């Protein structure tokens, strides 16, 4: 997948982006930089736009010559979705988005030594020392009776680190600031120079709950670069992996949501069903997160006819039990009272921030990569994409519930139609400095991986935009106006991943 690429000098970036986005057909999907000084003596800013109606991507590549001022006009005043991408470029490459309203550090925190940009090619990872703490101002909310409540980065449950700053008047939340990226691992840097097959192991471990989606995006990008033909049976088995991942995530998340409001029957049933699904994963692949199944050019393991029957039988049971669990929720006024109208994400905000996945489809944004830009075997499978318009906790819950049911149908369908054939195709070779990207629909939304090849089938630059990346800022839009005790519930309904940011 490459799409059209328009190469322009960085100074005209804003004008070019305005032209592409005119009429609202194309929307910002991702934005990142690349240090191409070794190749052509310049930095490049890549801006990716996607249109559902055209089912097409447009890429703008803005060039910053290395001897010029290292800056480019910020797109954030035009489109809010660019805000995080530009802060990240500023942190990791030292390229300044001129006119950005908020250039506080995003990825690198206050104690990072200034003037060191880890994703530049001349950065030496071994020489990093902590720097002086710089200021990280959190915008204050002032007024009589307004309090600030800091929460985290260390939390009481077994979850990842994130700092939340609530400004509250009584129990009402006026503003929420989220500070994340506490555990950034530099995986994008670490895979530079590695062969495609070695980098696969890092990719698979970007995140636990989206292992399949991340791996699939990566291998598809590599296959697109190397013009590799993937056998049909492997395409089907990849969809099986992706849907099993969606299923255990959604079922687990439905149970987890109940923990946000203390509904014990929901919590225990959700975890029981999730456990059954994860044990199935383990039977299929030897790994509860389905790791090690998807590989470059295809899949590593086949499934037997006996396994096919076992999967179908288990999923039939899960369907019934999931319906029972959802029945407990759907007809329960005490439950509905908590989830209806709580944490509303307006449709316009979802569009402006480029929100993806469950959160988008619960706010009336009808967008699913599996249908709108199909990959693997999704082209030949028929399925329904549930969309709700209320944008509240309940809507996100019902989207998950419907998608889980839909996943089971997809799996039944593909097991029925499973074609015979080889499991892997031969990987081709690639000219240096070619780029390609791939997008998949993870349980949390569209997941984009962009790749530029170096010499000898290695990686020159790897960029990962997980589904959680555009969705985190949406949380801070949905929360204000609610009361503090409802925050955990709203947070769980978005079910955002920290590790996917900290790649």
């Amino acid at each position: 997948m490459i799409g059209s690429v328009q190469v322009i000098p960085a100074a005209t970036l804003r004008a070019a982006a305005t032209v592409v986005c005119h009429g609202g057909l194309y929307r910002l999907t991702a934005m990142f930089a690349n240090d191409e000084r070794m190749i052509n003596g310049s930095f490049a800013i890549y801006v990716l736009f996607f249109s559902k109606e055209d089912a097409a991507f447009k890429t703008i590549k803005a060039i910053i010559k290395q001897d010029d001022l290292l800056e480019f006009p910020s797109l954030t005043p035009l489109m809010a979705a660019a805000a995080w991408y530009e802060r990240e470029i500023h942190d990791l490459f030292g390229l300044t988005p001129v006119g950005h309203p908020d250039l506080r550090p995003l990825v690198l925190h206050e104690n990072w030594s200034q003037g060191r940009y880890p994703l530049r090619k001349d950065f030496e990872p071994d020489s990093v020392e902590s720097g002086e703490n710089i200021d990280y101002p959190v915008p204050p909310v002032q007024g009589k009776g307004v309090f600030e409540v800091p929460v985290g980065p260390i939390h009481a449950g077994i979850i990842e680190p994130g700092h939340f700053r609530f400004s509250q008047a009584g129990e009402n939340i006026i503003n929420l600031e989220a500070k994340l990226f506490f555990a950034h691992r530099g995986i994008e840097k670490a895979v530079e120079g590695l062969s495609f097959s070695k980098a696969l192991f890092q990719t698979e471990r970007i995140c636990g709950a989206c292992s399949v989606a991340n791996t699939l995006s990566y291998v598809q990008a590599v296959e697109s670069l190397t013009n590799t033909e993937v056998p049909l049976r492997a395409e089907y088995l990849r969809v099986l992996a992706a849907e099993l991942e969606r299923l255990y995530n959604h079922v687990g998340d439905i149970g987890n949501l109940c923990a946000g409001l203390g509904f014990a029957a929901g919590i225990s049933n959700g975890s029981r069903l999730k456990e059954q699904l994860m044990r199935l994963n383990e039977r299929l692949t030897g790994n509860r997160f389905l790791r090690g199944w998807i590989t470059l050019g295809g899949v590593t393991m086949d499934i037997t006819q006996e396994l096919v029957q076992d999967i179908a039988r288990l999923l039939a049971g899960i369907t019934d039990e999931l319906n029972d669990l959802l029945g407990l929720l759907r007809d329960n006024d005490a439950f509905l009272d908590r989830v209806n109208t709580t944490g509303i994400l307006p449709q316009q905000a979802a569009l402006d921030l480029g929100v993806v996945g469950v959160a988008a489809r619960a706010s009336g944004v009808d967008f699913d990569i599996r249908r709108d830009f199909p990959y693997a075997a999704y082209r030949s499978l028929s399925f329904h994409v549930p969309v709700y318009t209320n944008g509240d906790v309940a809507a996100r819950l019902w989207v998950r519930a419907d998608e889980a049911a839909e996943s089971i149908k997809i799996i039944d369908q593909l097991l029925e139609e499973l074609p015979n054939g080889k499991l892997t195709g031969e990987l081709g070779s690639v000219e240096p400095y070619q780029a390609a990207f791939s997008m998949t629909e993870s349980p949390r939304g569209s997941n984009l991986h962009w790749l530029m090849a170096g010499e000898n089938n290695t990686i020159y630059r790897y960029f990962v935009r997980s589904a959680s990346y555009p969705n985190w800022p949406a949380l801070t839009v949905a929360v204000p106006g609610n009361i503090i005790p409802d925050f955990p519930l709203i947070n769980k309904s978005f079910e955002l991943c920290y590790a996917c940011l900290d790649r």
Partner: protein
Amino acid sequence: MVSNMEQMTTILISLGYAFALVLAAPLVSGIIKVSKARLQNRRGPSLFQVYYDLFKLLQKDSVVSPTTSWIFTCAPYIYFAGAFGAAALLTSGDLFALLYLLVAGRFFLALASLDAGSSFGGMGGSRELYISVLVEPVLLVTLLTVAARAGSTKLAAMSAAAASTPFSLPYIFAAVAFLIILVAETGRIPVDNPDTHLELTMIHEAMVLEYSGRRLGLIFLAAASKQLVFILLFTVLFLPWQSGGLSPVMVFFWLVVKVVLTAVALAVLETSTNKMRLFKVPGFMGLAGMLALLALVAQ
């Protein structure tokens, strides 16, 4: 001299009861925990886990924030003393004295929650007082239904009156109201959630987040004791079968059965629903208040 002796005996007996109650209270907590676990398809902890936890905590050192004052260090003792005193008053004391002791303990705990200056503590304290403002008037009206029949606020007289006319209409209204109070006072779903780790949703637990070690143990023990005091008030005043010439052993036996049944009922109640939105609590308490008023009028 004789009356002095009698008073001494009464005091000693009351203290004995209070000790027994404090010793038994963690078991009741354990019964609730185990019942909840079974209802949720879990194996659950041992019935005696609460004792093990208390034993562990009471041996541990307590970490105290340097920004706190004497209130923080003293509050657990005052809270425990309140619960212990209430337990001692159960057999021979006065209703108002019992309630005031418990309220005094809560007041100091709420003060202590503000003392460390942490955000969760303040939220917990303010929510606890918000709930208690709703609970306490209803609690009084409910108990006055029984007191009116007895013509006295002495707990002994009240239990005798309750035993003589069990399950009359006003008592049933009052019993339902008291059950709602019981749920709120013991920090249970749908008002509070004792099992959550989500600080932002906590009420009672948020108040005591700063405590550790033996002080935390003391707070747990006091909360369990307070819970048993309320369960006993409920069983004695609103489930009164034990009168009618039974031997003391049988009276005690039936009391234990009723306490266990109430504990299991609490677990069922807690598993069957979810926590309500914080600002829906007044409506819930309003319901209890209406029932209590009806009971008083019917009386």
